[in-house]
């Protein structure tokens, strides 16, 4: 879960987490984190452990790029051992399929607009459970990951990169506030720890 180090002139990662306060996600009691969100800025660096070469650092670079990538958080039930995904469905209602999302131009006209609670997809597992993945970010839906439709295992093998769910572009005015309701990796760890402690205590 280590955040990637800054590499090159204009890019770094920041990961933010969204946990449900209960009730919203239809998951079992133990660990109900519907989605994790990775916020990418200027592309790249994948999971990094120490590199042999020290990459160049440029001090505090503020994020210049507002693109958000929605991925499953590490503690999501679907990412736990023993879960097999049987289907991924982007048709979230009779009238709305995320696959039909078409954007054009720089301003991404035509994009479906998402609120934090907008469902992105529904994923079913072999044990009969169904999980709804929510956007957690307000903004325009740029694309959903079609690779996981053909290869659902990708979602579990590389949830934070190639197994991403969707790409969302918040409104320019909201780009700073979009992370206000979200947790940093440290805060997320704390939430998880608390949950583990409370469930083991009871």
């Amino acid at each position, binding site marked *: 879960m280590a955040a990637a180090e800054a*590499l*090159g*002139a*204009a*890019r770094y990662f920041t990961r933010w987490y969204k946990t449900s306060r209960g009730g919203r996600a239809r998951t079992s009691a133990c660990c109900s984190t519907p989605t994790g969100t990775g916020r*990418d*800025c*200027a*592309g*790249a*660096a*994948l*999971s*990094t*452990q120490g*590199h*042999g*070469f020290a*990459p*160049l650092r*440029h001090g505090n*670079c*503020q994020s*210049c*790029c*507002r*693109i958000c*990538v929605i991925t499953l958080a590490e503690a999501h039930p679907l990412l736990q051992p023993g879960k097999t995904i049987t289907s991924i469905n982007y048709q979230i209602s009779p009238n709305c399929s995320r696959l039909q999302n078409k*954007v*054009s*131009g*720089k301003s*991404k006209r035509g994009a479906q607009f998402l609120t934090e609670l907008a469902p992105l997809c529904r994923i079913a597992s072999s044990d009969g459970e169904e999980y709804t993945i929510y956007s957690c970010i307000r903004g325009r839906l*740029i*694309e959903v*990951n079609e*690779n996981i439709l053909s290869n659902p295992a*990708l979602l579990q093998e*590389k949830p934070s*990169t*190639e197994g*991403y769910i969707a*790409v969302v*572009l918040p409104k320019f005015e909201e780009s700073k506030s979009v992370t206000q309701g979200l947790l940093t990796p440290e805060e997320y760890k704390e939430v998880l720890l608390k949950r583990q402690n409370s469930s083991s205590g009871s």
Partner: protein
Amino acid sequence: MSSLTEKDRPIVQLLLSAGTCPRCIFRFCRVGSQTLYRHPYKDLMKDLKQFLEGNQEEEDRACFDVADPPCKRFRHGHTEEGADDLNQNGVLSQIPLANDGNADVENSDVENSAVEVCNVCLGILQEFCEIDFVKKHAAWLLVKQEMGKLDLSLAKDDIVQLKEAYKWIIHPQLSEELGVPTDGKSLFEVSVVFAHPETDEECRFLATVCPDCFKPAKNKQSVFTRMAVIKALEKIKEEDFLKHFPCPPSSPKNLCVALEIQCNNGAVFVAGRYNKYSRNLPQTPWIIDGERKLESSVEELISEHLMAEFKADRRPFAIELVNPHRIHFTAEEMKGFQQTINNSSDKIQVRDLQLVTREAIGRMKEGEEEKTKTYSALIWTDKTIQKEHIAFLDDIKELKLDQKTPLRVLHRRPLALRCRIIHTMKSQYIDEHHFRLHLKTQAGTYIKEFVHGDFGRTKPNIGSLLNRTTDILELDVESVDIDWPPALEN
């Protein structure tokens, strides 16, 4: 097409009685002889009337005679009219007519110095072609001149544009006054801006009839842009138009007003090749929320001193210098600039500094798509590698990539799928987690995304080829394989 014929008679008759000036009548009759337009106004009026009265034979011999040098005749005409009649705009004063606009011009209006304002050009092809006006200010016309006012079938494109006719008349006058040749395609532009407030209001009806043509845009002061009006006029049905706008147009009470004259020198382009010697130097200024993130940039270093500094291979660049006051430089002077740039900073170096044309810049931009580039990338892998794991990369030729717009630029570029080719690769093993890769690629390839895969949105990628998680630590451009700008002898 150089003079009027019998078939033009009905048009001439119609327009003249509607209050249209002779030059506009010529335009509608597709008269293409520029010299005719330069004849003095009075003569043209006289000739037109003769044309209407006379028979065919006579009119062929009538004064559509291009033999006389227009300038001389023009001056002659001007002094006749007398300086006293000129008002502030350098135009003839108006004597208000007893009846409304559609006065019958055959009752010797021509003999007084008063001239009815043309209902089409609003005076631009009348008084504003007078030699005196050349010395005064002018204003842009805000409304389209030709509004479908004739029932006669006349293709709009056949009509001589008012702008063209104006230029035909004014160019020789400017030439004579300023002592320089005129060239329609010159880089030095003189803009004359006309306004006619009277007709401003008359066009508002277009907005009610064709509301979808007039969408307010952020940067524009008024929705009545030229394009919007043109679009609306194309859309509007004739009947609707005629309901709101008199046909033929009424004669305006006032001439249009000349607001200003603007002079603009065309941009010059300086090109060269640069090398960048610092990784902390971005190509363009990096500013977020008004705050600069990295000091300086290639663009600024070049612009400030016409210089750039740089490393390894030199990359072509071009700078547009807007509205320069001096445009001619010798090769020696350009070399001098190059030297000054190279002396002033050790972060960049330039060569082949030269003046180029706008077209050449277009070719450079094309080169961005068509040419190849060579890079050197330092790559990290999560799982260990041995030499044999990366050796196969050297054998891959013409690898086709499908690259979706990288996430790092997606906020400012459209989402698209690009097919690009990696022509060749050459790997250099460093250690279990690192190797260097030299690649020759089609211009426009996103190298970083080819290395790390950009969430699987660039396929294939080095990560997928090696079946590992990979990342790029360093990227250097080794060469840009385009032979532009031309190398100079240094």
